[in-house]
């Protein structure tokens, strides 16, 4: 029997990369796909994926759901369910290339949808909350169906395989986005299934992660109190939900959210001379102690109009940032940045817990 993600836990690195144009200029995925090549040995072929932002301008006001299905019957079932709450403007197979490196693919579709106003009024929910709940419902209750992307004007593409092959498989050279994130997986806790590849997404938030967090269960127990369901036993999923909770539902800024999950040590907070900052950091650690993420991680959070890179507070994983003109590059290794831009400047390694936030100029995306 084939194992499915979430049923097995195997205790055990990864590669991440990202690029963003601050001017909102759209780039094909070619550079980000190539960036993963020198980091090939950081993954083991059991997962690769990309998230592109600004890739569906013609459907920019619609939620783009990307789904994996086990079989046609499951797809029909999910489509019927979607129609109960959404206007489905378009549903289609996500185009792929058949290549020998990627095999055993599920049925892969995308739907451009918008929640029915009547349903929202009836449930007294805002649009995003309704979409998030729908994603959770499908992923937990419909066996054989998995929503792996659910934001507006963005999309995640992931598979079992090496990232450079996954890019070819999904024909990413045919998409253009103002930002891209990428991941090469070396699964450590789970067998490696299509749904478990990164990026993990909810709404427009996507997370690529290199690391192995030790607070998974503490974080999971807390976040599941707020309606999130961790279905895959992988740490990246819980990080994604934590960030959605802190930023979308609690209204924290990106920096504040970073200060929760990679909170400074009490000794470091104690040594702060800025009283306002000291009080704020103390407040955040006190209010959200269960959302402190411990153990090694370097992540890139993608969101509508920007990226945030963050390391764990002990900086147990590598991460390098560089820039050139309007573009900012982030990667596990400098070599990956040099592939995207040989003349990248201001290469630096952010300190542990120090978020690097890059936003596209207002109105440019």
């Amino acid at each position, binding site marked *: 029997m084939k194992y499915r993600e979430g049923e097995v836990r195997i205790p055990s690195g990864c590669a991440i990369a990202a690029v963003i144009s601050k001017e909102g200029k759209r780039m094909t995925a070619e550079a980000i796909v190539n960036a993963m090549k020198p980091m090939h040995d950081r993954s083991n072929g059991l997962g690769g994926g990309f998230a592109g932002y600004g890739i569906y301008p013609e459907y920019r006001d619609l939620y783009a759901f990307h789904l994996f299905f086990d079989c046609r019957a499951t797809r029909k079932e999910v489509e019927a369910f979607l129609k109960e709450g959404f206007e489905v403007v378009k549903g289609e197979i996500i185009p792929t290339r058949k290549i020998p490196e990627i095999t055993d693919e599920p049925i892969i579709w995308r739907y451009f949808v918008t929640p029915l106003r009547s349903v929202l009024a009836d449930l007294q929910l805002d649009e995003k909350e309704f979409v998030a709940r729908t994603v959770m419902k499908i992923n937990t209750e419909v066996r054989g169906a998995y929503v792996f992307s659910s934001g507006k004007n963005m999309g995640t593409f992931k598979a079992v395989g090496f990232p450079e092959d996954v890019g070819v498989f999904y024909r990413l050279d045919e998409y253009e986005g103002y930002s891209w994130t990428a991941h090469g997986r070396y699964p450590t806790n789970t067998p490696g299934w299509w749904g478990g590849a990164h990026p993990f997404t909810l709404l427009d938030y996507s997370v690529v992660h290199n690391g192995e967090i030790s607070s998974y269960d503490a974080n999971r127990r807390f976040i599941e109190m707020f309606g999130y369901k961790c279905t895959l036993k992988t740490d990246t999923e819980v990080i994604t939900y934590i960030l959605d909770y802190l930023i979308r539902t609690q209204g924290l800024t990106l920096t504040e959210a970073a200060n929760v999950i990679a909170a400074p040590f009490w000794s*470091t907070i104690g040594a702060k001379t800025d009283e306002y900052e000291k009080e704020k950091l103390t407040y955040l650690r006190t209010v959200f102690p269960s959302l402190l993420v411990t153990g090694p991680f370097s992540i890139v959070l993608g969101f509508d109009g920007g990226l945030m890179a963050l390391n764990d507070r002990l*900086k147990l994983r*590598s991460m390098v940032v560089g820039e050139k003109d309007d573009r900012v590059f982030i990667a596990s*290794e*400098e*070599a*990956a940045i040099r592939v995207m831009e040989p003349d990248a400047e201001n290469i630096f*390694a952010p*300190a*542990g817990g120090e978020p690097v936030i890059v936003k596209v100029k207002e109105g440019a995306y």
Partner: protein
Amino acid sequence: MTIDAREMGYKEINEALRGGEKEYTVAGCLGQRFIGAEMGGLDLTIEGVPGNALGAYLNGAKITVRGNAQDAVGDTMNDGVITVHGNVGDAAGYAMRGGVIFVKGDAGYRAGIHMKAYRDKVPVIVIGGKAGSFLGEYQAGGVIVVLGLTDNDRRIVGNFPCTGMHGGMMILRSDCADIALPDQVTAKAADADDLENIRGYVAEYCAEFGADEANVMDAPFTVITPNTGNPYKRLYVAN
């Protein structure tokens, strides 16, 4: 001899380096790991960005990098010299047991983690710029010199230097007034003997990277050492 590394994996590069020549230039390097691993008797120049664990287990070779290097430079190196004309990533000199690493610019986190020394094997790391947090974590031997020459507001070393340090010595070109050190180490202003101990390495650094030795030495230096020969005495058993 020049090796064009652009289409080569690390195994092929290291194979080419075993070709019997005394001098090699690896051009177009881009992320290949383990370059020069366990090699001796070679003079190797690297153009581009070498991958992680450059010069791992190095056994006498001389490696010069014309730019930045990534993580774990000189991992467990035994002998030789690695000179980096740029910055290095995290964990430079990881478990190093001999030889010298010169870094023109900054070092990432955990430089000199678990360095060790035995008799005449005394590894040395000279960081010209600033160092990240956890400098000399679990340091058991050897010498770490940080000059802090990078022109920015950052402290010469990040948070938690010397965590778990129980041997060796660290010399920082700073009065260290703004550096919090753990209880098991002692810091004191460097005296003439201490400065004499590092003068040769500083001179070499200045000659290699074109800094003015007199200027560099004309600053307060702080020497940090563990405050007992056996800091963990009776931690678990009487020993």
